[in-house]
């Protein structure tokens, strides 16, 4: 399979951008070679994961010449408060095949358990002679546990040479480790408890019947029965889940009893008191008609969510994803903003980075009588750039709620609230962030008392690799390439400088190459007073484990 990313890149970057020095057909073939090499490395990854040393050896040419692998030193130094780094050294002496296999046997002995191994091709050059030869930089990571059972994580980069054999296999002729870092956790930071807590649920593989849509999978938290324990609602495939906190560390699924198990397919859930009566109501964004459920609790205080979408005036069609709340006009009633995408596949974005053909976002302004009026257009926030996510915050510190909108195929919107009406100031204050925006979070990362912004984007090993091949001379100053560079750059952290201006602090404070990152954001998980960052990621893991 050819990388979709390559196809997209070739499509959007035809013509003068490519320059005369680049042979488009060769770029295409080279990416085919890269993929076949990557697939070979994937097979090698599985052999390493299973510690199948003989199979691993079968990927090395008889005449292999290689450097050594790291020797873990006795003394590790603290890398940060939660982990220690290996003191490690390795030789670059020319080892033969047998000695190199022995190195792997020794090195993998540092892992008492291996959960995951990934080898990836970062950069590769190919020479087409009698046999195709590759000269590549690769990355690999091993996640597991060390001899004492603590979590251990190694990441490394290496330079390899390989030759494509007549039967289609690559054999490694050379392997030289260039960088290596390994860390061991000092303690367990998080433990998965889904199953004993009553939150274990599974859905079919993506693309098969019952799970064929990108939508759903939203989650919202509130103390919906006001018992002092937080409950959660997750929108799922074909149904929703309402997890009522039992106060003993476990949850009971009560969507049916609350009246929201089966709704039209929903995306982003939002708990809010929409009618200021003191209980928690539920808004559900949807690719379809938006929904509002008024809570009319039972005598026992259990949630009873009644569909009032029509009466409340929110049953508007949209390709809704995230729903967020704030009082935009400062009348004491919560208003609701819904980001709207488009039907990807039926409609394609009219640009990879400046699309204008998404469906307009919605702003439901609360009238204070149980009804809402949709005013996105008149209030200036009908963003139509394939919006995935948004967050309200007083970013310009003037007391009202501004809005930041993350757009997948467009630049992002920073809508300053000016008396309940909004103006997009993203360009003038440096908040365009022309990546594929998929999430936004607000928090003070440098403890200067100002709210900063974190925006989730994509970063891709394949994107990096392809861009460097298209631009061997580093021709990256053109606007379009700057945009495309964001494909590979990762998440963005904007530092709030005060008086409404921002600077990009991603490189200074990061970087954040977080893969195909959706939402997440700021959280001080260890209560040290500093906001850490979390980024869930991964687009689609298929039946085939091969990936680029």
């Amino acid at each position, binding site marked *: *399979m050819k990388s979709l990313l390559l*196809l*997209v890149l070739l499509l959007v970057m035809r013509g003068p951008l490519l320059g005369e020095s680049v042979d488009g057909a060769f770029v295409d073939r080279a990416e085919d070679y890269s993929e076949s090499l990557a697939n070979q490395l994937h097979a090698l990854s599985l052999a390493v994961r299973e510690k199948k040393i003989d199979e691993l050896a079968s990927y090395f040419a008889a005449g292999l010449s290689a450097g050594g692998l790291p020797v873990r030193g006795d003394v590790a130094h603290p890398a940060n408060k*939660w982990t220690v780094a290996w003191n490690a050294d390795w030789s670059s002496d020319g080892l033969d095949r047998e000695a190199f296999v022995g190195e792997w046997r020794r090195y993998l002995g540092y892992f008492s358990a291996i959960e995951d191994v990934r080898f990836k091709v970062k950069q590769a050059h190919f020479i087409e002679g009698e046999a195709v030869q590759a000269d590549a930089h690769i990355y690999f990571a091993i*996640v597991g546990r060390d001899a004492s059972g603590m979590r251990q994580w190694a990441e490394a980069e290496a330079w390899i040479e390989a030759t494509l054999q007549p039967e289609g296999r690559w054999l490694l002729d050379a392997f030289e480790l260039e960088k290596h870092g390994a860390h061991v956790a000092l*303690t367990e*930071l*998080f433990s*998965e*408890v889904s*199953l004993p807590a009553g*939150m*274990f649920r599974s*859905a079919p593989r*993506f693309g098969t019947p019952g799970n064929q849509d*990108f939508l759903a*999978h*939203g*989650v*919202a*938290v509130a103390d919906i029965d006001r018992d*002092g324990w*937080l409950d*959660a609602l997750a929108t799922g495939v074909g149904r929703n889940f309402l997890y009522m906190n039992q106060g*003993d560390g476990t949850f*009971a699924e009560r969507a049916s009893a609350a009246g929201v198990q089966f709704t039209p397919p929903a*995306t982003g859930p*939002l708990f809010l008191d929409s009618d200021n009566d003191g209980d928690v109501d539920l808004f559900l964004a949807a690719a379809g008609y938006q929904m509002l459920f008024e809570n009319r609790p039972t005598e026992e205080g259990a949630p009873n969510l009644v569909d009032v979408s029509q009466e409340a005036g929110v049953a508007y069609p949209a390709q809704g994803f995230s729903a*967020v*709340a*704030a009082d935009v006009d400062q009348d*004491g009633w*919560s208003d609701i903003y819904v980001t709207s995408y488009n039907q990807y596949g039926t409609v394609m974005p009219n*640009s990879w980075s400046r699309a204008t053909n998404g469906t307009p976002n919605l702003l439901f302004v609360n009238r204070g009588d149980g009804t809402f009026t949709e005013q996105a257009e008149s209030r200036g926030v009908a963003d139509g750039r394939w919006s*995935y996510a948004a*967050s309200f*915050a*007083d970013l310009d510190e003037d007391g009202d*709620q501004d809005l930041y909108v993350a757009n997948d195929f467009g630049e992002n919107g920073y809508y300053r609230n000016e008396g309940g009406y909004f103006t997009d100031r993203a360009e003038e204050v440096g908040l365009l962030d022309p990546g594929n925006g998929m*999430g936004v979070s*607000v*928090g003070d990362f440098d403890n200067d008392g100002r*709210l900063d912004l974190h925006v989730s984007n994509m970063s891709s090993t394949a994107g990096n690799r392809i861009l460097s091949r298209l631009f061997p001379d580093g021709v990256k100053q053109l606007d379009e390439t700057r945009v495309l560079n964001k494909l590979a750059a990762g998440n963005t952290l904007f530092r709030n400088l005060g008086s409404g201006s921002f600077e990009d602090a991603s490189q200074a404070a*990061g970087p954040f190459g977080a893969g*195909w*990152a*959706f939402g*997440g954001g700021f*959280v001080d998980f260890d*209560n040290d*007073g*500093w*906001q*850490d*960052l*979390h980024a*869930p990621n991964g687009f*689609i893991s*298929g039946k085939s484990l091969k*990936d680029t």
Partner: protein
Amino acid sequence: MLASSTGDEAAGNQDYQRGHMGKIFAEGFSFSGFERDKLYLNQGGAYVDISGLSGLDSVGDGRGAAWADFDNDGDYDLLLTELQGQVHHLYRNEVGQQRHWVRVLLEGRESGPDAWGAEVRVKTSQGIAVKAKTGGSGFVSQGDPRLLFGLDSEEAVEWLEVRWPSGERQRFGSVAAGATVRVVEGEQSLQPVELAATSLPDPAGEDAELLAALVVQPRDEFPAIALQGLDGEQTNFSAFRRADRSYLINLWATHCGPCLREMPELAALAPSLAANGIEVVGISLDMGAAKAKVPSFARRLGVNYPLFTTEEHVFSQIFSGDQVFIPLSFFVDREGMVKDVMAGWSEETAAKIRTWSGDKSPLTKGTQ
């Protein structure tokens, strides 16, 4: 330049991309898949990647994330949602509660009860920390509406300030670490709040594999699966269920040896279970021609409790994967909720059921 591409070109791109995307999904290819979720530790304003050591670096396709203190122990746990496979992941925070914290609950008046966007600042010897109460952020997600401030080793905050969306600002004096306080807009003093605390359970033990293979989980409502009586009458479980009794639902099939061995035992226990308000119900998973054999098997085994057959689509309401395993029994309470799941037939299962039946005779293996 990109925006100026001609209509024909745009149309061509669309067909190309759409065809390719369709192929990817139909054939099960991966596209930026198998990525491990990221966690970056903030060290004084600069971040270091600790993902592979965090324990929350799920390799699945992450979508929503809600950080919330579900067990009220003073740190944020994580509820993560994914695209496929295991779609919900709950991670217990193991370290945050070891450090100091204060928790702030906001209740607006002029700003409306939720007071979305309200900002709280706390002063410690380390400086001033600010958090906003956001009404949703990240991607399709909304986390803990209460604000938890990590204090590291500080014993208290010197002062606490709230900037309400209405424009009102309020400042309060010292709050001790470990306290939860409610601030009501316009009221002059903080209200101390006593929140009960517990701990999310320990990671899964031995029954993990069984439960992972099931859609129906303990504390779930037992699904309204389609049932057909041996007389041919169509019904479903929720129509059949009565609110004044519990049910022991036993899934079996005529080809299942262990099932056929346990059914006479169930029949022997059925009257005393009934006397305790528990009705035994047998559901045969036989399909096709084998369904016709169910009545004769029932007679031969002496089944004295209601028996039903069902339809193949019911399998996916009970089992999460392709594997269907029986005997499998569910204990369903008077609210229709699953209280227990038992796979296979063992001394422990028999003992458990005898206990429900009121049989106080000595049990083997000390099972209670």
